[in-house]
């Protein structure tokens, strides 16, 4: 187990290093001079040159990369081009928003899809199963932002349960903040829930056809015992992997759903920074998301390894 963990950690660090290099390289190669963007086309060549010098744009690529990389280790992402503050101060307060939103969505996915998946597998072919699967099929194909629009219309404008666009900051009123995030979280979670239910059901049904299941049945286990003691242990594996992927994907789909509900999270900063060519901010957000995704996938791998020793080899 120790060896497996070590191997995973080394891979994690290497992947992150590669990602950071790619991200940094992309923004260095990309056309568009940040100094020119800041000063406008009217600027004199001397002023441009002076600004480039002070922004550190004239240093060699590898030196800038190493400086950036070592800064990141102490959460220093450099200074924003368009605002005169550090990137950390700019995006730091937004991280909790996206974290809470993703965690809420993830909780919804787990709490809804696992019981539903088990239920449909247990009652396969029944009326309830057919209804759930039909709704499921449909829910899978609706993009999150459309679900968001629908929820805004029903709960915001018709039932008036929340005020669309009336975001409450978490530092002012935490309960109100959580309340406002419920609908966005549902919008993000719904399509993923549907996929998760389908996957879990398919896995349980597949496991139940295997030899060990038949043996367990013949030894007098009841269906319920079978399900929770034998089948679920094996069937939940791919679902855990999938939920890990979902967690990673949620951060990305959060960017769009944020716009639907007018939440000033990382997505909004990212879009603003992209259009202002504020590369340090974009780099920081992309790295943050990449870090989360790589870590989540490593953690799911490790959970997998703990639950199924065969994977560790």
């Amino acid at each position, binding site marked *: 187990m120790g060896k497996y963990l070590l191997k995973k950690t080394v891979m994690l660090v290497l*992947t*992150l290093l*590669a*990602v950071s290099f*790619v*991200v940094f390289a*992309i923004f260095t190669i*990309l*056309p*568009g001079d940040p100094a020119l963007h800041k000063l406008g086309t009217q600027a004199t060549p001397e002023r441009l040159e002076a600004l480039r010098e002070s922004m550190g744009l004239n240093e060699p690529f590898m030196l800038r990369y190493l400086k950036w990389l070592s800064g990141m280790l102490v959460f220093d992402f450099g200074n924003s081009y368009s605002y005169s503050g550090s990137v950390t101060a700019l995006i730091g307060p937004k991280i909790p928003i996206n974290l809470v939103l993703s965690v809420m969505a993830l909780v919804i996915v787990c709490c809804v899809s696992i019981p539903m998946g088990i239920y449909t597998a247990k009652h396969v*072919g029944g009326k309830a199963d057919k209804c759930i699967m039909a709704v499921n*099929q*449909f829910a*899978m*194909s*609706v*993009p999150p*932002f*459309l679900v968001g*629009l*629908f929820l*805004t*219309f029903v709960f915001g*404008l018709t039932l008036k349960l929340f005020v*669309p666009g009336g975001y409450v900051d978490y530092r002012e009123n935490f309960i109100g903040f959580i309340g406002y995030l419920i609908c966005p979280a549902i919008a993000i979670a719904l399509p993923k829930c549907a996929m998760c239910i389908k996957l879990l059901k398919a896995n349980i049904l597949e496991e139940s056809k295997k030899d060990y299941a038949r043996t367990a049945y013949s030894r007098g286990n009841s269906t319920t015992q079978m399900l929770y003691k034998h089948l679920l242990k094996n069937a939940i594996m791919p679902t855990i992997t999938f939920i890990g992927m979902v967690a*990673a*994907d949620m*951060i*990305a*789909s959060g*960017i*769009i759903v944020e*716009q*639907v509900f007018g939440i000033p999270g990382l997505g909004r900063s*990212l*879009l603003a920074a*992209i*259009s202002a060519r504020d590369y340090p901010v*974009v780099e920081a957000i*992309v790295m943050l*998301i*990449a870090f989360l*995704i*790589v870590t989540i*996938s490593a953690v799911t791998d490790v959970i997998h390894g703990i639950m199924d020793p065969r994977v560790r080899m």
Partner: protein
Amino acid sequence: MKKKTGKFNLILGCILLGGIGLFALSGLLFMPYDPEGMDIANKLAAPSLAHPFGCDNFGRDIFSRVQSGLLTTLGIGISSVALGTVLGTLLGALMGYYAGLIDEGLMRIMDVLFAIPSILLALIFLSVFDSSMGNVILALGFSIVPSFAKMMRQEFRKQREMEYVKVAKLFGASDARILFVHILPNVMPTFINCILISFNNAVLAEAGMSYLGIGVQPPKASLGRMLSEAQGYLTSAPFYTIFPGIIMILMLFGFCLLSEKGSEKNA
């Protein structure tokens, strides 16, 4: 029982996509109004016989805009999936068939690409280069490649060990011939399924990007952008959201049903 629902899904999916496709194609032959022609007198006019889907905030006919938006979306989807399929299959075939160093190296690169969500990559790409239709296609096409290559790699890896591949090798067939003449037809179900899933993702990503305002630029119609504009008029003109929304859902639903069919066949 299972077979019957599978067939039902396939038929329903075909009908939905066929209907949507016909609706889009009919826009090539006949559009009731100019999708970019404004008419302030009809601003946010409710659906009527003259304007079956109503009019938007500039008095443009929503029916015509949906038609032309669908054409754009399908055009972008088809071209980006074509690009992604060619590159993804090539990479997947190389990684799966040759294994060893090529495979290891490319897989690590894929891991890195997987760490940055494809929609983010596309966003950055489009914000730096202008969002012309060609660039949207390039961005979406490349974002399809990693997952496509990974799926195809597994299939090629499986087939590599099969008898018929060894026999073909004995007969002196070149690697390229083995890969694309012998193996590819044998992995057709996965291949088609990959294409359908990619198409679904491409359309979804296109909608998301144009909703964010990055993607096809106005006044050109696009379903995602129409929806983001319509959001401001949810109470005063709900039809503005409803019609483009329904068309988009039906199209994605159709793809979903078809790819479902493919994956069942696979199992």
